[in-house]
């Protein structure tokens, strides 16, 4: 009896110490992150120029659905999401299983090379892609030299090709990042499973779909949620690579929110409301992916 009481108080002591260690971090997160989020929520129900804000109810939320530019931005975000995320994740998965091969030489070199793009600065890689796809840029010169084109094609001057350039840039930048998650997930899969599959006559493709994909499901779910989240908040590529153009064909929601707050006459209430829509979309999509993807029992 005495003994267990003592143990309990020790446990209490420990948890007390634990809370003491946690408190500073919790306080910081609450003040630096949650408090502004709540403030932004209040802000999203106000409207006005700059500092002259007044309560406006749900006007901002109604307004964004009547705003053609914002609707265009929403559409663009979903185009990126639907096309880019699946391509990127499948590519990352393939690369990860290739690089997980035990007999492969210079594994470290390949892994580093593929991971390296996501260590580059967002702005500089966007600027480099912009000059690559310029009318007199490298891509056009190569295409002309190879005889595919007679004059340079203005990739960034046409809506669809500009979107493709953004998608290519995103794939280049983020595939390696997702691959690293898959690689670490693959380390938890026993190699003997593959060996026995091999003995049973499974082809590499069969063992990929039959072993790798199902066993990596939690990691795939994680990367899918992270990529969805990231794509919906896409900002740098739109701002630096295409400037949102031509005629808003590539502008993203975050880019438009930035314009509304800092480039145009500031309307922080409206900007906050649009930010909350992104939050809502991310939450809904993440929830759906959890429901669909996570079938662990």
């Amino acid at each position, binding site marked *: 009896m005495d003994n267990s009481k003592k143990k309990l108080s020790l446990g209490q002591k420990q948890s007390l110490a634990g809370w003491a260690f946690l408190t500073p971090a919790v306080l910081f997160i609450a003040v630096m992150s949650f408090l*502004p989020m709540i*403030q932004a929520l209040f802000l999203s129900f106000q409207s006005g120029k700059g500092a002259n804000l007044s309560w406006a109810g749900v006007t901002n939320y109604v307004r964004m659905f009547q705003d053609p530019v914002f609707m265009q931005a929403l559409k663009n975000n979903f185009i990126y999401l639907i096309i880019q995320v699946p391509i990127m994740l499948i590519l990352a998965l393939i690369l990860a299983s290739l690089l997980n091969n035990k007999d492969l030489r210079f594994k470290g070199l390949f892994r580093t090379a593929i991971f390296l793009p996501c260590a580059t600065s967002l702005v500089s890689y966007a600027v480099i892609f912009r000059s690559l796809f310029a009318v007199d840029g490298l891509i056009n010169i190569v295409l002309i030299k190879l005889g595919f084109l007679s004059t340079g094609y203005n990739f960034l001057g046409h809506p669809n090709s500009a979107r493709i350039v953004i998608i290519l840039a995103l794939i280049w930048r983020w595939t390696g990042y997702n691959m690293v998650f898959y690689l670490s997930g693959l380390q938890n899969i026993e190699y003997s499973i593959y060996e026995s599959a091999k003995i049973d006559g499974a082809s590499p493709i069969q063992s990929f779909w039959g072993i790798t994909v199902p066993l990596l499901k939690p990691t795939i779910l994680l990367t899918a949620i992270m990529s969805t989240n990231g794509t919906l908040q896409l*900002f740098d590529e739109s701002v630096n690579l295409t400037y949102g153009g031509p*005629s808003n064909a590539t502008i993203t929601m975050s880019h438009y*929110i*930035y314009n509304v707050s*800092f480039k145009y006459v500031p309307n922080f209430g409206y*900007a906050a409301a649009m*930010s909350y829509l992104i939050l809502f979309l991310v939450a809904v999509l993440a929830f759906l992916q959890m429901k669909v993807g996570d079938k662990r029992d």
Partner: protein
Amino acid sequence: MKKKIVSLLLAGAMVASLTACGNSGSGGQASGGKDGGAKGGNELTVWCWDPAFNIYSMNEAAKVYQKDHPDFKLNVVETPWADIQTKLTTAATSGKLDTLPDIILLQDNAFQKNVLTYPDAFKDITASGIDFTQFAKAKTAYSVVNGKNYGVPFDNGAVVACYRTDILDQAGYKVDDFKDITWSKYQQMGEEILAKTGKPLLSCQAGESDLIMMMLQSAGGSLFDKDGKPSMVGNDKLKKVMETYASLVKSGVLIEVNDWDQYVGTLTNSTVGGTINGCWIMASIQTAEDQSGKWAITNMPKLEGVDGATNYSNNGGSSWAITSVCKNPDLAYDFMAKTFAGSTSFYETILPKSGALSTYLPAAQSKVYAEPQKFFGDAPVYATITDFASKIPSNNTGVYYYEARDAVATAITNVVAGADIDAEIKTAEDTVNFAMGK
């Protein structure tokens, strides 16, 4: 991870509230007056952004003023324009104006927006003793809000048309053939030059409306009326500008590139035979030293069949504003009146090194301005430009200028791609009206 704009916004709110809580030390430093009342009496703090240009000019102005006022101290803080705008927005929205310095440099395009959105942040300097009649009228108009002066005009954005004399020569033209012409004449000669040399005459940045705005202002047109309401639908000048622009692109005389670097590249790599822009573009042109002597300037073409069309316009430029928290307004007024608004010799000092062309009209009479410039075929280009500056028609920028520019840029992109001009202008006006909350 990717940048989180949401948290950025939230962080913005945080910064505002933090500034409100702690009376930050930087505020005291920036305003220059807090750390010693007596000492602060002779000191001014300025925000501006270009070490080779406006910062240099400010420091030279301080030297001029110090000759008569040895105690005077000037503290220039290098602040990029985007930061100035963000800091101003933060200070004004949080009500902590004392974080601002005494004098800030504002882009002319953003002047009206800032004064009208944050009226408490700026001083009305109409009666400060600064003589505004000595400046080019169209330039001063950028910093006049509701009939009151809020800014001292600084650099010149007068539009010049620059031509490569060697390329014109190949097609049998001279620069004088391009003086006082119309856009259709320009296009006709441009087509001939394109056919003979394979070089377009003009390049510009796609998705930007600089050229459109220059053409529009050259005929005294604006995207807004006097009351700040959008006036695009039924604006004959705007329609004519759009037609002219689309026709130039179609003919191949005007090529669109995607960013600023490519634009400057077309000039320095001899891809095009000329350009039309604010006179500050001459600094970029002169980076191509091998082209020295091959450039010449004249005025821009004018619109046809439009009332009030001229060969003169404006693009860019900036003006000095005095903030409402300035501790020594009288000192700031006097400093401005004796340098930027009253000293020809000051402008003579800054011109050769920085190329900072003034809109201060008496400076144009100066000998330094009349000196021939080797790069531009030994022509006295600075005097020419100052003369251009005095002939520019005014326009209304209004509060929603950036919204309107973007809307027009979207419209022209679609028009070039084949859309109907009237419908696109209507859409652009709707976009601006929407932004204005109507």
